[in-house]
């Protein structure tokens, strides 16, 4: 029975969501009016209604005119509050100014700009799924920026399906709400995972890398050969000169010095590789080192500086992902996305 009930509930909810989505098209700018504001009593409002009924019964039973009067007065206040709550939200203009960036698993700040219309918009609350922020007040004709944290599940584009804008002002007996369904998407970087030792497999890159850095002797450490060291790492020139078998060891990891390579982690899952790379990009960014990024189908030449780091992270985030199009109404970056599309995109990326 409960299964059937759940099905019915889901059916109803889907239908409702579809209806709402039709009513509120995706847009980075949302103007709230009668067309898209919903209003219902809160729990307190329902109790208030019951209280009015009890008061009316009291008035009838004790034939008390003043109880009648106060019942009507409070009822009228309730209806008036309905209009006030509605007006509190209507006329408000919400713009998504800046979709945020951040690492997967973190809360990504989205910046919204609220512009109040003719009426004050008091105690406005923005929320998305599980996060919200303190109510803000925007007075008539004024503008206020608000950051909303949106939880990200995994890397890629993050476009929340709906962001709820709610107000319960003045009395909390009614809530008026609506949604903004942004077009623009935030970018979620792969969650950094400490990278294991990498085995450089970049053909051609290895030789050039070796010659470049070893000749410069920039960051190299020389240490005696051990069992298991790759023969490519052995400094044969020095062996020829001195007869010692030494190996060049670079700071950081044992791959190519400037290049962070997608193919350096054979056997690891694609997403995991991206996470390793994100970790390394972060590390390099902190130390200020030069590095380049090598992804299948996308190469970023070595550089340094925060802009470069951000660019690399963005590339890691969106590699193999498709920017959500306006027409697509499914949410991006939320947990519901199927893994099938993901794998398809990755195969494409490899080609």
């Amino acid at each position, binding site marked *: 029975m409960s299964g059937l009930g759940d099905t019915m509930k889901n059916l109803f909810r889907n239908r409702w969501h579809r209806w709402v989505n039709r009513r509120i098209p*995706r*847009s*980075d*700018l949302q103007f709230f009016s*009668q067309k898209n504001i919903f209003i219902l009593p809160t729990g307190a409002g329902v*109790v*208030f209604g019951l*209280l009015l009924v009890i008061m009316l*019964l*009291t008035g009838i039973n*004790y*034939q*008390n*005119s*003043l*109880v*009648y*009067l*106060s019942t*009507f*007065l*409070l*009822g*009228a*206040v309730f209806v*008036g*509050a309905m209009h*006030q709550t*509605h*007006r509190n939200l*209507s*006329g408000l203009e919400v713009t998504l*100014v800046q979709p945020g960036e951040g690492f997967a698993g973190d809360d990504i*700040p989205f910046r919204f*700009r609220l512009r109040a*219309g*003719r*009426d004050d918009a008091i*105690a406005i609350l923005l*929320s998305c*799924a*599980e*996060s*919200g*922020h*303190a*109510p803000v007040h925007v007075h008539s*004709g004024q*503008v206020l*920026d*608000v*950051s909303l*944290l949106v939880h990200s599940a995994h890397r890629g584009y993050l476009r929340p399906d709906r962001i709820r804008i*709610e107000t*319960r*002002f*003045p*009395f*909390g007996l009614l809530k008026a709400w609506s949604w903004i369904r942004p077009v623009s998407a935030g970018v979620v970087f792969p969650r950094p995972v400490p990278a294991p030792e990498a085995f450089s497999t970049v053909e051609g890159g290895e030789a050039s890398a070796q010659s470049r850095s070893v000749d410069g002797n920039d960051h190299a450490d020389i240490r005696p050969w051990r069992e298991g060291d790759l023969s490519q790492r052995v400094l044969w020139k020095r062996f020829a000169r001195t007869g010692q078998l030494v190996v060049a060891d670079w700071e950081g990891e044992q791959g190519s010095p400037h290049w962070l390579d997608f193919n350096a982690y054979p056997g690891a899952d694609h997403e995991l590789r991206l996470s390793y790379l994100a970790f390394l990009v972060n590390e390099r960014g902190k130390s200020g080192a030069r590095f380049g990024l090598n992804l299948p189908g996308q190469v970023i030449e070595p550089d340094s500086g925060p802009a470069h780091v951000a660019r690399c992270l963005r590339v890691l985030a969106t590699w193999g992902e498709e920017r959500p199009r*306006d027409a697509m109404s499914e949410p991006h970056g939320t947990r519901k996305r199927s893994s099938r599309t993901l794998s398809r995109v990755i195969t494409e990326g490899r080609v």
Partner: protein
Amino acid sequence: MSLLDRLRGNGAGEAHSALATSLPSRALLWLIGSFALLLTPQWDRLPLWLIAACAVLASWRWLAQYGRVRLPGRWLRTGIMLVLTGVYVATVQGRFTVDTAASFFVLAVGLKWLESRSVRDFYVLFFILVYLATVNFLFHQEILWALANFTGIALLFVGLQVLNAPELPGGMTSGWRRLGALFLKTLPVVVLLFVFFPRMSPLWSVPLVSGEARTGISDTMRPGDISSLAQSGERAFRVTFGGEIPPYRDRYWRGLTLDYLDGETWRQGQTEDFRALGRVAVDGGVGPLKPEEYDVLLEPTDQRWAFALENSRAVSDNVVEESADLFRFRRPADSPVRYRLALEDTAGPGEQIERAELRRYLQLPGEGNPRARELAGELRRNMSDEQIIRSLMARFREQAYFYTLRPPAMPDNGIDTLLFDEKRGFCAHYAGATTFVLRAAGIPARVVIGYQGGEPGAGGDYLIVRQYDAHAWVEAYLGGRGWVRVDPTAAIAPERIESGLREAVAQEGSFLENDWASPQRYANVALVQWASLQLDRINYQWQRWVVGYQGQSQMDLMSRLPGGFGMRELGYLTAGIVGAGLLVAGLISALQMRRGEKRSAFRRVVDTWHRLCAGAGVPVRHGETPSVLAKRLAEAEPAAADSARLFARMVNSHYYSAGTEDEGDGQLARMHRLLATMKRQLRRSNSRTGRRRD
């Protein structure tokens, strides 16, 4: 970054409540203020310990808000609850009335203060305080108390606003302003509802009788009872006459008769059995008063008796006439009652009663007061009934009897002591003694309890009868004439009957000597007298027209409207009013909204631009940014490329700059000019391409 503070909870509502786990102080202040205000109408009804407990509990909560003390933990809280409930049960002693229930309600509100931590608790307090105001209305309907109650409710709503927007600057004044505007806007609907909402009869009956004694006459009379009543300046009832107000000496308001002397105490010989004998007019209690009619507004007495002048008949159907020309309500007057009576001509023979019935009015205790019996025997010997009465009155008039509010104690054979030794007493003493002597002389007699007198209210159009007008007198039965009023007080102190108690005890200075607060005590100060009478007039009108607006008044009002309104029509009308009110409100808000949209000139410019684009074959897509639209327009119509790009930049700068509104005017003008240019360019290019096509 404080806005970014992550909140736990599921969804916005949870986040909202989680934020305010510690309630905003100002909101709490309003709530406590409202509690204090709503408690005042109850001060005379509640036991003192309960008021003290409520004050302590509310202060505790208030101090806890500032961290001075901590709110009690669960065990202490339970302990306090148990103790207070125990005290309550001990006080109530098993009586269950609305009054005790109301006290318990107050106790519950008080205890809730210790458990007010969350927003939810705040709302619970809000609801019970609103209902506390309702309960207050059951007990007090005077205009000042009503104002206090409504103010209390208003405080609650201001508190709610503060709760919902705690850090809003200037929230308090704007809260009052918002509430005031709301009140004014909804007032017409409230008034219409009040007038037209059908007043149904009670669904079930829980009497409102309070356990406490009220000031007022009772159904037993011991010597001294009424003199204690004479120390109260409280109002008993108010009367409006349709015709002329009868002279002071005829204002005898009969309440009940006592016919059984039990030692020193007069009581009712038989408990009143309900007999609906009197004529009952179904709908006579409303409309203008006819000359012979008078309209009484009685303060609650918790008793069924109604006060009436002699020779009255019932007009309104809430009073019925009982046997001895007395009037009774159908149920105890636990709230102010308005009823209407009419004076009848006194012509015609008096009531005749049977011999057996008369024996009731001759009852005397077997022994006691021998001298009084002796006096009666003497009188009986050589006089007729009427002569006996006249000579007894003459005795009171001529001998040195005194009318006093400070009678001496007369423990044994009180009537003898009064008549022959002390000769000092109050109306109750003399009424009792006279009845005793008359009965001893074989004349059927009874004590009548009620009020005598009444002073005019402001404007002189109605009478106010107060508790100190309480009076006891005698009625004797004379064959052929029926019951005849005999008032010994009139013989001893005629000024009491002619102008009231104040004059009668002026020399003694004992008028309201224990009631310092009563404005009647200071009646010689003209201003006090004037103010008190004006207030009384306002209250009287308030009680007659607002508080007293019940079924009959409503039906009367409706009967004056065209179209014969009945209960059912009223129901339809009420539904209509509610519907129309909602509709009008909706229309107004829709109009305002449209005006608001119109006033947003910026949107209008953008809309024009969108139309222009659509006309040029580049319809706006959903969620398209202005620059993208401009780019597409430029591709389609290269002639307008520059102006389109510039326009898009202006739109962007409007959206994405936190600018003020005043810079907008110049900007808007520029945008309008740009649009005009764009339109020209498009037209020109269109005509050119058109020509080419030709």
